[in-house]
């Protein structure tokens, strides 16, 4: 887990701290870190935000699901819930709403440092959103032709985005509304400190660990300003088992509750034996 907000003056990202969302060229910074142990099997890369209330009520309702589902009438006439991010200069915004508007747009790249050579690590951007989200819930607007630009005619990009929605990715099945980064962002997090899946690092083969122990460097295109609301950003690398990521709570809770139950069982057995027998002695007076 690497925090790269850059509030500390010694951090390399300090210079990007007060960058605004539309500055060109984007501010970049590099953080070097070391992995103590190698990571086996698939590794997942997350970005995490703190003090970011994605669960605020006004924020949560500010979206138009029918527009995101590809409904053409909603494309040009987004719902009122999206206010004030509904229209911009009299043109409807696609995708509308505050959730879409605040999409995370930092770019993170990972390099392995191996004796002064930087080896880029392949990051896979497919498979990070829920399958049902990508294939059912979020659909691009229908029409003839594969040209998304034409399909989105008549709408404009959200206010704080650098590029319009049909230019999010060059691949056609990750462009437009079905862009996976976009879908991941649109699923509002439950708590103010959250993480979202950014990229996957796939396992190469069974012999080598996916990420060997050693030095790595993280290159960040720092576009997303969080300092104004005292938020923090970080990057997390994690392996996953069938039970999810590192989660001590469940284990500790089970052990605690189990031992309490065991202890209570013993205590109640003693009480039952002692007081239950009280009723079994027949009190017949003489």
């Amino acid at each position, binding site marked *: 887990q690497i925090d790269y907000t850059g509030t500390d003056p010694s951090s390399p990202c300090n210079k990007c701290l007060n960058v605004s969302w539309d500055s060109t060229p984007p501010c970049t910074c590099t953080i070097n870190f070391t992995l103590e142990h190698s990571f086996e099997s698939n590794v997942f890369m997350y970005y995490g935000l703190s003090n970011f209330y994605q669960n605020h009520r006004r924020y949560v309702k500010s979206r138009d699901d029918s527009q995101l589902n590809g409904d053409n009438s909603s494309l040009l006439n987004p719902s009122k819930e999206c206010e004030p991010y509904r229209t911009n200069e009299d043109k409807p915004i696609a995708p509308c709403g505050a959730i879409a508007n605040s999409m995370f747009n930092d770019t993170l790249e990972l390099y392995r440092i191996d004796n002064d050579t930087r080896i880029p690590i392949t990051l896979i951007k497919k498979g990070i959103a829920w399958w049902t989200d990508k294939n059912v819930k979020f659909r691009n607007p229908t029409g003839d032709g594969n040209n998304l630009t034409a399909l989105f005619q008549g709408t404009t990009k959200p206010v704080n985005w650098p590029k319009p929605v049909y230019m999010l990715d060059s691949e056609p099945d990750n462009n437009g509304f079905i862009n996976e980064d976009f879908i991941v962002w649109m699923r509002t*997090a439950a708590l103010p400190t959250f993480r979202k899946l950014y990229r996957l690092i796939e396992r190469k083969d069974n012999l080598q660990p996916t990420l060997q122990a050693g030095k790595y460097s993280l290159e960040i295109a720092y576009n997303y300003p969080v300092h104004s609301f005292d938020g923090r950003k970080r990057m997390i690398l994690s392996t996953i088992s069938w039970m999810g990521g590192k989660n001590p709570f469940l284990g500790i809770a089970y052990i605690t509750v189990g031992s309490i139950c065991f202890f209570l069982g013993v205590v109640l057995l003693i009480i039952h034996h002692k007081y239950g027998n009280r009723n079994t002695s027949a*009190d017949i007076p003489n």
Partner: protein
Amino acid sequence: FFRALCLCHTVQVKDDDSVDGLKKNQLSRRSCIYISSSPDEVALVEGIQRLGYTYLRLKDNFMEILNQENNRFELLEVLSFDSVRRRMSVIVKSSTGDIFLFCKGADSSIFPRVKEGKIDQIRSRVERNAVEGLRTLCVAYKKLTAEEYSNAQKLLQNAKLALQDREKKLAEVYEKIERDFILLGATAVEDRLQEKAADTIEALQKAGIKVWVLTGDKMETAAATCYACKLFRRNTQILELTTKKIEEQSLHDVLFDLSKTVLRHSGSLTRDTFSGLSTDMQDYGLIIDGAALSLIMKPRQDGSSSNYRELFLEICRNCSAVLCCRMAPLQKAQIVKLIKLSKEHPITLAIGDGANDVSMILEAHVGIGIIGKEGRQAARNSDYAIPKFKHLKKMLLVHGHFYYVRISELVQYFFYKNVCFIFPQFLYQFFCGFSQQTLYDTAYLTLYNISFTSLPILLYGLMEQHVSADTLKREPSLYRDVAKNALLRWRAFIYWTFLGVFDAVVFFFGAYFLFENTIVTSNGQMFGNWTFGTLVFTVLVFTVTLKLALDTHYWTWINHFMIWGSLVFYIIFSLLWGGIIWPFLNYQRMYYVFMQMLSSGPAWLGIILLITVSLLPDVLKKVLCRQLWPTATERIQNASRHCQEHISEFTPLACLKSPRYRSSDCSSSPARRSNSHSKKMMFTHWRGVDYSVLPSVFGYSNKHCRSSAGYHYSGSGLETSV
């Protein structure tokens, strides 16, 4: 005498000739039935019929009597019965032209107006009848001259047509007319006790319900009746607060004497242990007169009447039974009101069968009328009507007990489940910037109270039987466990609320720590806020339903169906709700959320863990309290769980000798729990031919007793032992 009895009544004759099948009066050779509002009158007329004087009918204002010859009497006036002057009269003119005034009434209202006749003989006869428990009436007559009669008629006419104060004027006229009688004789009617009345009263007293008898009869009659129905037992000391005693001493002295007598023995007992059957040395019964009561209730100038009332109530509180005789109907209502407003504000129930009980039935908290021979007046004015007095036992001890337990659990459970429901929402606000973001989807919010959690508790409130009905009837003392609103007191409410808050905290923070900054899926994808809320909601629904399942004692197929069915319905609803993009919704936030949540291992483990942890304190409390401090109800439940059938109870003969126990043998009695009981019982379980002895359910424990009171087995209830 016979003529008087034959004429002075308001009985109507009904001819029996249109009854299909058997004629009702097969035994008597006459084919007529007498009906009247008072069964006493019917009894008298039928009795006279057996002696040869038959009352035939009232035709054209002529009453016909069949004696050796047919006589016809012209009915001139009827001065009807009222409960204040307690007599009635008729003025008749015989076929020979003589005008007679026949009067029939209570002895206390006839004797003062009599000027000749065998007064002393009849008076002693009346008293002897009363002591035997018979209802007595006296009969007298007067011969009127024509002039006297026309005067009386004129006065009566004026009074009847008066526009103002008609009652008062009528009373005055009656007073003037009914004077200077010649005493004829006295009658006695046996009013048999209804079947099982004694059993019912004993059961009510064992249940901790104080039983008072309010009657209009004479003191001796009423006292004999009370002994017959076991309101007073053989060793009950009777205290009297009657007119006789008040004439000897002043009211003040009498009250103080009585209060000293009762309070002397009850000083060491805690107040709220027993209100009925008491195990202390002596139990008292109080007899009070209607006149004495009016003296007590009369407001005095110096304001000391409230003291008298307080003193009177104090005496009554320490008596196991109170008999109020010679009560006018309004006085009956007065006494009920007095009790209602007394210090502990008890809940009062009045039960009666005649028109003179109506005011008392209306006054009490619960009024019950018995549909009986005296007509339906009482039943019409009551809250509940039952056909016989013995039904009161089952009504109170079984049905009343059941309904109370059901209702109190319903109320507590509703508050509990809603606290569990809303408190996580409240806690969530701390983590969403206080922006009122809901934790659960709106469909869940709406349907929680309507479909997911409503049917099980509805069924509980209709069908729960925490102890079987037979056991409740057999053990009236179980009623004490719910006395004084025990299940809805502050303590019980706070326990339920604490449980609700604890559960809500467990749900929310359990899910919070599960989700905080971790991934719980096996493919690395993350959950959003709706999944979080759905997890909390799932745990919530399962927990509150399982809590109800833990509280249910009486499982039938329909309980199983409702409880498990509600849970299954919740799951199916969630699957359907999130399974389709519903076109009518303008948001699709719940799409596939439930299924995704179920596909994550830690979510399952978390659900199971959180359900267990939330139910743990309640289970713990139940088990501990049952083992360490069981109430009588719980003991019975334990006993009946071990042996489903064939439990009979014996009182060992050895304990009939009422030995005296010193303080080291009794159990301490903090209010309700671990009550000591006066009857020592043993339960035996019949297993085929042999029998085995079960542990004594109500036995004395060998616990150390802290109070210095001595207990001993009183001889009460001996009649029911083997």
